[in-house]
């Protein structure tokens, strides 16, 4: 692979907590990735459209309002609908452990909650992208 990994960091829904999203965006840049941040209040449809348009490898979703069970699966559903399942979806925020299996079943590749190091997230993304490229 000769181009850097491209990541869309996105805030679905109406949640205004963007400290985590901004830190992840900066940390992934520091790890050599190209990062686009959507800003607040993006609908799942807007996020998927931006991801396709920007040709990203990964979408990172952040939600702290408790709407993750509605909003994250909607993003993965729309990716499927638009035949863009090559885009890997990872997520973070205030997410109870008991909700994680549901999100993983619904197409989210990894969930990183409070206390995860940014390095761990970056390593996960690199590995997931490499595996995806190996499949193609």
């Amino acid at each position, binding site marked *: 692979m000769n181009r850097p990994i491209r990541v869309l960091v996105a805030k679905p829904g109406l*949640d205004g907590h963007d400290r985590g999203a901004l830190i992840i965006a900066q940390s992934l840049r520091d790890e050599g990735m190209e990062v686009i941040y959507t800003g*607040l209040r993006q*609908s799942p449809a807007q996020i998927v459209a931006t991801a396709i348009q920007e040709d990203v490898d990964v979408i990172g979703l952040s939600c702290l309002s408790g*709407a993750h069970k509605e*909003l994250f699966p909607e993003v993965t559903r729309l990716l499927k609908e638009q035949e863009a399942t090559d885009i890997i979806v990872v997520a973070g925020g205030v997410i109870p*452990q008991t909700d994680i299996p549901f999100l993983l079943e619904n197409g989210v590749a990894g969930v990183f909650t409070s206390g995860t190091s940014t390095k761990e997230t970056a390593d996960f993304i690199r590995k997931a992208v490499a595996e995806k490229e190996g499949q193609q």
Partner: protein
Amino acid sequence: MTTKSFAELYREWEEKTQQLLQKYPEQKERFETLSGIKVDRLYMPTEATKHDQEQIGLPGEFPYTRGVRPTMYRSRHWTMRQYAGFGSADETNKRFRYLLDQGQTGLSVAFDLPTQIGYDSDDPMAAGEVGKVGVAIDSLEDMERLLAGIPLDRVSTSMTINAPASVLLAMYIVVGEKQGVPANQLTGTIQNDILKEYIARGTYIFPPKPSMRLITDIFAHCAEVVPRWNTISISGYHIREAGSTAVQEVAFTLADGIAYVQAAIDAGLDVDRFAPRLSFFFNAHNHFFEEVAKFRAARRIWARVMKERFRAKDTRSHQLRFHTQTGGSTLTAQQPDNNVVRVTMQALSAVLGGTQSLHTNARDEALALPTEESARIALRTQQILAYETGVTDTVDPLGGSYYVEALTDAIEAEAGAYIDRIDEMGGAVDAVEQGYMQREIHLAALTTQKKVESGEEILVGVNRYRLENEQQPALYKPDPSISHQQLERLQALRAKRDNQAVEVALTKLKQGATGSENLMPLIIAAVKSYATVGEICNSMREIFGEYQPNL
């Protein structure tokens, strides 16, 4: 300026305080330690220096470093005001009534995000968010249900609402009217602090200029009609949660406060007409002494700003009164019971800093909304501090500590430098539009994150003393049927109300928004017609436009 000696000032203070005590006695005639040692109201240096006199002073006296009241918690504890709200108006009403039955005298309403951003529950933008982080309020009808059976002449209500603060306040006024409580008897607070929404919290709607107009319209309307209402709660809480330092929290909050005062003066209001109703809202994080010093420094800076810069004469205009909430971002998802200890220390710093009211977070809030049990422990934490520890028995117990006074001076100086910088940029509104505070906060947040990841900053349970295979406790589970029920109620309302009357009210509001008249009476009229929060806010969106942040 007359130069009275500190001894003279103290004698005057003592006389004033004795008179006050005749009217408002303290909670006990004699305060003493468990060993029976008498505890005095106030401890002071035997010989006062210039620093003691000018920087520290006396409680209830300018510059209020030692507190806004001469007797502080010896007369009355802080208000224990826990923020609550979830699901539907009916559910939240039940919780409120339960809390009032338990002796709570103040309510604090959490609204869901669609309400906070001016969307109806059936707006596509509201998908997934209805009733999640607070109660869903679409119309006056929901507000009537939220407040059913709650005597608004006796209960004070704090509402965390900003961009649509005018709309929710209008609803509260109308519900009061329907209960037979005149507006001049209503007491409570609206957050109504839009600048920190652009800086840190994210629930803005309109651009800064029309937003500032709505705020000054509220100041003017309340000064006339709802004089006991706290018209704004100028908030550092969210600035700190977004990653700022304690110094930045004070500096940016007070810079925002200066912008509101200036805007109201520019709109033709007399400073002493509205300034006594300004209130503040701060965070309490882990660095114990810095937090105590922060609250003391904030009071002193504000007193001087109001007296010297804005020439306020009413002493109530000089007094920074504040609510505190413990730091949400300091809670760890790992070993959540440890958070009870963090919250206790943070709450203690707020008490030693002289807070007027306090919310203590629940141990499981890094994982979900709190369970009832967690919320109860949070409240008990305050009750233990208030009734068991004796920290309330003397005023400003840390006053005069070399360390705390030096920190207080340092925070005042460093925050002052930030405020000067913001003044040079043209004030807080310009600084926000240039993204200045946002950048400073982001840089501070990144520094913290790097320190945590390198282990330089230790977080117990996160980067030290971790547990293998930790199991999370049972968490609060939201009711998935809430959204559906709310949509049905909204549809029913739209079918039964007089839609022509709604149209007329909204058209008048739009006309008013294009001019310069006070919008509060027009918003109250729209609310009375059962126009929804979304319809009212969309009408204003048409005229004012929406804020687009620079990324």
